[in-house]
């Protein structure tokens, strides 16, 4: 009798374990954000999962264009897309997908960012640089500057746009070439037309061996180089510099791409990338205010859960935090 009871008890325990296994299956919500949002999203993901243990938020970072291509070109089922350039969503997603339905037909802008000049205590002239003299410091031959590869990373072409705007707004002819353009082989040439400044990049961006300018694939590798002393200054987003604990110089609003009210000025600088990396989007990038936006693709497998997480995420960005882009 005792043996039967013992066996029954063991069976009940096994049943409970198995059932708990069944109900512990989590709902996966796939989120693809721009790389500059990875730090805040890591925090937001942890907070959300602590409140909703039945949900598994899976975050996979990409450049903004690559993020959208996961849905439009690679046909992946993604629940939430969060990009660092609001214009990309209508440009790339307001069109029919294979099911005859638009990839999306809405987006919510929620935060803004601005370009800054990040540096460390070890950077040349770290004790002298300020918002008033930054361009004079960068012009010095011995000062090494870096930015992300414009073909791969939006902050890269935004650095070029920013320096073209700086040359015009500060009325300092030749600034772009002294700091950046002349340090490439062949040199980058800015054409000034009635529509503004345009720089056409060669297919291969090849910095001169003097090391005045260095480019890396993305912000992550650029800032690693900055921290190891390989460069003195890096053009990057303000939220990224703060998130990495770096010092930075703020730049005037008419060139930092951070103010909606200066959109007409930003529009006066354009970068033509050396080749069309993606068949679905052209190779021309014109200055725009940096605005982050979110959307849910038409085929999101967990639309309801994506909507809940999106609402939570938007609240978190509204509240802000260290390394978060500023709320709109």
């Amino acid at each position, binding site marked *: 009798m005792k043996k039967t009871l013992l066996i029954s008890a063991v069976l009940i325990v096994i049943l409970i374990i198995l059932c708990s296994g069944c109900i512990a299956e989590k709902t996966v919500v796939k989120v693809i954000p721009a790389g500059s949002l990875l730090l805040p999203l890591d925090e937001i993901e942890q907070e959300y999962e602590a409140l909703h243990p039945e949900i598994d938020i899976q975050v996979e970072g990409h*450049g903004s264009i690559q993020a959208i291509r996961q849905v439009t070109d690679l046909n992946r089922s993604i629940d939430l897309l969060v990009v660092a350039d609001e214009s990309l969503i209508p440009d790339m997603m307001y069109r029919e997908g294979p099911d005859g339905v638009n990839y999306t037909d809405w987006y919510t802008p929620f935060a803004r960012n601005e370009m800054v000049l990040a540096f460390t205590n070890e950077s040349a002239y770290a004790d002298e640089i300020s918002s008033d003299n930054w361009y004079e410091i960068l012009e010095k031959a011995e000062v090494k500057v870096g930015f992300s590869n414009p073909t791969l*990373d939006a902050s890269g072409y935004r650095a070029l746009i920013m320096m073209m705007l700086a040359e015009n707004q500060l009325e300092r002819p030749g600034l772009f070439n002294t700091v950046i353009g002349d340090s490439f082989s062949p040199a980058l040439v800015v054409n000034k037309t009635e529509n503004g400044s345009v720089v056409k990049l060669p297919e291969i961006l090849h910095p001169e061996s003097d090391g005045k300018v260095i480019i890396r694939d993305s912000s992550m590798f650029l800032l*690693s180089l900055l921290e190891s002393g390989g460069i003195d200054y890096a053009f990057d987003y303000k939220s990224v510099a703060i998130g990495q604990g770096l010092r930075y110089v703020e730049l005037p609003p008419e060139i930092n791409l951070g103010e909606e009210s200066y959109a007409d000025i930003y529009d006066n600088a354009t970068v033509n990338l050396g080749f069309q990396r*993606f068949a679905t989007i052209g190779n021309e990038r014109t200055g725009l205010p940096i605005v982050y936006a979110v959307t849910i693709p038409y085929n999101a497998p967990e639309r309801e859960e994506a909507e809940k997480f999106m609402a939570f995420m938007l609240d978190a960005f509204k509240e802000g935090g260290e390394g978060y882009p500023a709320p709109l």
Partner: protein
Amino acid sequence: MKKILLILAVLACIFTAGCISNPYADIDWPLTLAGSDGNEKVMTVSEIAALPSVSGHGYAVSTVGIKYGPYEITGVPLIELLNQVGGVHEGQTVHVSAADGYLWVFSYEQLLGEDLLCLDANLKELKTPANMTPILMYAVDGKPYSYDDGGPLRMATMTTEPDVITEGSLWVKWVDRIEVHG
């Protein structure tokens, strides 16, 4: 006895044929090579796999720091593959494009393994660059490279030393056309 020997011989033939059959024969993925003179040549994966190949280490990192690998990779050095359409020379560039509409451009120097970045396991840049070779990869860990991972043909940067991480932007997936420009 003769019958048994005959059956054994037939079985041996069947098994041997199974072992040495070409694992690339059924892969329907034509690759177009275009020389600088405009001449084109279409090759099957099987034909590419029959060319002299190299094997080594492959380990990549995405622009946001996601690591892929390490793998044991096999393929044909891109610079040698292009000999099929007249070769590539100094001053020319090579456009590698993919079925998903992606394009990347390599310089001649990069095909020689120069102007390429490599990192250690902590994603810190190696002061002394490793020996790197851009290859058109068709096998990973001795097996045909799967479509889901970016195969059957994918660009990769092969290293002779293990645990050297290379830039993922050069690892073009689903390669279906390679052109020499200039």
